[in-house]
């Protein structure tokens, strides 16, 4: 496969995964803002998904509709859903012959939907959850279409590398922002809604309730969202998939490149596999998450150097 094509597939997929994560986050934050506007702040979400600094974020953080407009339809925000979908679609457009026609139509329809004026109008006047759900459904259709129509070849592998790398980074980011807001005093959030919304924003509340009895505890949340290999948004799950899809690229032709990246993924996987909540907390959760993010970043750079460099 052409390096340029691999690069575009990878980024198309990263942008779609980011779009999905962002929409989920916006939806849950909006719901939280309806619970108690005094306690709630949009600042963490804005810091995660936009380039706003503390001050700018603070300025609009009490107005949910302004935040949603900025994050969903603002042209000037390079990380708005509109711009992310446009980038995903442009990447898809340049590799139309490597994704299925169904996938291309799905991306293209999503793009045209995002350009409709009615989305801003809805966000201004109507129930934002309805419109966020509509957009989330477009993401889901994209993921489903990819799963059902794409052949399990090299293209599919690069699409999944982008997807799981992005997801791993996202979960690490969300945990980092949410936990660092507590300054290590995890008992401070005695209010269960804090933990509830954290789990909801990574679609993990139901699993948590089924697994753990007796309320919310920071250690349990770390266990589920970092170590549980069966939870699809955990860091462990992302790394495991990253390794599995990367293994499909094994080939005699680029032995050195493959080994270099495989070593990095394997190292990260082992590190998480042989951690416990206890060792993570002892080492410092924030440090652990920072290191994990750096590892993901370096894997991304290594892929770029060994597989996507074409100019």
């Amino acid at each position, binding site marked *: *496969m*052409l*390096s340029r094509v691999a690069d575009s597939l990878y980024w198309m997929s990263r942008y779609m995964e980011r779009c999905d994560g962002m929409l989920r986050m916006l939806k849950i934050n909006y719901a939280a803002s309806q619970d108690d506007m005094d306690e709630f702040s949009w600042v963490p979400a804005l810091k995660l998904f936009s380039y706003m600094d503390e001050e700018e974020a603070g300025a609009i953080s009490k107005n949910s509709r302004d935040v949603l407009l900025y994050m969903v339809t603002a042209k000037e925000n390079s990380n708005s859903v509109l711009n992310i979908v446009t980038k995903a679609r442009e990447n898809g457009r340049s590799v139309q*012959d490597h994704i299925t026609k169904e996938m291309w139509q799905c991306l293209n329809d999503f793009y*045209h939907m995002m350009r409709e004026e009615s989305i801003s109008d809805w966000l201004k006047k109507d129930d934002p959850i309805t419109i966020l759900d509509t957009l989330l459904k477009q993401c889901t259709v994209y993921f489903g279409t990819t799963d059902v129509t794409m052949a399990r070849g090299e293209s599919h592998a690069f699409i999944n590398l982008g997807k799981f790398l992005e997801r791993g980074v996202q979960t690490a980011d969300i945990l980092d922002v949410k936990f660092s807001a507590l300054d290590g005093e995890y008992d401070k959030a005695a209010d269960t809604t804090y933990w509830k919304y954290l789990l909801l924003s990574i679609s993990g509340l139901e699993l948590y309730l089924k697994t753990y009895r007796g309320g919310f505890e920071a250690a349990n949340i770390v266990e589920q969202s970092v170590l549980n290999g069966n939870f699809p948004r955990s860091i462990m799950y992302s790394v495991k998939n990253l390794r599995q899809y990367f293994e499909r690229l094994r080939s005699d032709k680029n032995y050195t490149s493959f080994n270099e990246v495989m070593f990095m993924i394997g190292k990260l996987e082992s590190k998480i596999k042989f951690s416990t909540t206890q060792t993570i907390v002892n080492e410092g959760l924030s440090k652990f998450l920072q290191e994990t993010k750096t590892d993901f970043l370096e894997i991304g750079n290594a892929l770029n150097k060994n597989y*996507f460099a*074409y100019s």
Partner: protein
Amino acid sequence: MHTSELLQKYYVDSSTWDEMYRNDSVREQYRAVVDFLQQLSIDELNKKEELAKRLFMSQGITFTVYSSGEGVEKIFPFDIIPRIITASEWDHIEKGIKQRLKALNLFLKDVYHNQFILKDGVVPVDMVYSCPHYLRVMHQFPVPYDIYVHISGIDLIRNSDGSFYILEDNLRTPSGVSYMLENREITKRIFPDLIPANHVRSVTEYPTILHKNLVSLSPRQIANPTVVLLTPGLYNSAYFEHTTLARLMGVELVEGRDLVVDNHKVFMKTTTGLQQVDVIYRRVDDDFLDPLIFNRGSLLGVSGIMNAYRKGNVAIVNAVGNGVADDKAIYSYVPAMIRYYLNEEPILKNVPTYQLANTEEREYVFKNITNMVVKKTNESGGYGMLMGHAASEEEITKYKAEIIKDPRQFIAQPIISLSSSPCYMNGTLTPRRVDLRPYALCGPDGIEIVPGGLTRVALREGSLVVNSSQGGGSKDTWVLGK
């Protein structure tokens, strides 16, 4: 209002050949379609038009117009009423195009090798040497199977007596074939069952035949030669066509930056290292193909690709240097070529063409300029044209001055009226002028033409210019099986 009323409002100018009407009655080949349309209400027709637009948009059959830093997607206008060609008309067209292509291919081989046709004075030497598309680099280079024109899109028009004329030979990188394919798919969606009921011949073979021909050109005799389609990139207005063809043939779509030449071989940069390329279907013009030989500033091409080509390590389709054969001044010699090489009379007629480099002809044209179309010999897409009947005094004077400066670069033709075909516009059927571009594929096994083509239509009332850049649209084109 019912559609039958709308058909009664269809007025045809008596000096124009209409594809649907003759003496106020519907021609045989259109009868089934007209009957079908008459069962529909205006509302239903509007809905179908709407559906067609939505399908084009959703499938990304669009081109992007960039304004104020933002891309806006546009669709090429599509008229929902098909243009219908009878079996016997098609038979005539097919024979005529095959004959013409045979002669043009022989001309290209001759003009880059022994030049018999120049020595025998059939085509003037200076006519060939003054053509900017005549390329010295192609001299004495034997292209595989002596085929230069693998893909052509020859434009035909129909005069008021109903006979077909050749308007232009497009032998370089003709575009529009994806619209032939997509327009048919859209018609299937908006008029269910109508196509089989009318015995319309299928056009879907096109990518299969093209792929078969491309594979057969591979210089390496291997089981799976690497065929690629070279595109100028995402921002080219025909990008949609490039991706469609690549997808339908299952070949790699590459840009110049994906390719590299090493030791006179062409490679593409892949995730597993370099992979040798055997056949390149390029949609990049000669000028931009190789910065070492042609336009030095070109970023669309590949340095060294011409040397790889001349060494025979890679096949390039269409061949380089074809522009000398579809030059608008050379055009007038094609009937003579057919007689010279094939000893046959041309089946399809040429539009009479005046060479403005010839003093007598130029004077004649200047005297009668209001009845003439003047064209630049190496422009396409409807650019640089003067339509004598519609131009102002001032435009004519300016244009004349330009001609005097370099008369070789201009030709003139009497204005031909073009046949009209019904179009659905704002709730009524209106006649609009059309042309026809069938796509012919030439491989080692001979010339094949899929029964169909692109009908381009001048959507402005009274306009005779069908190019998409000048407000033209397109129609699905049916060739009937019986």
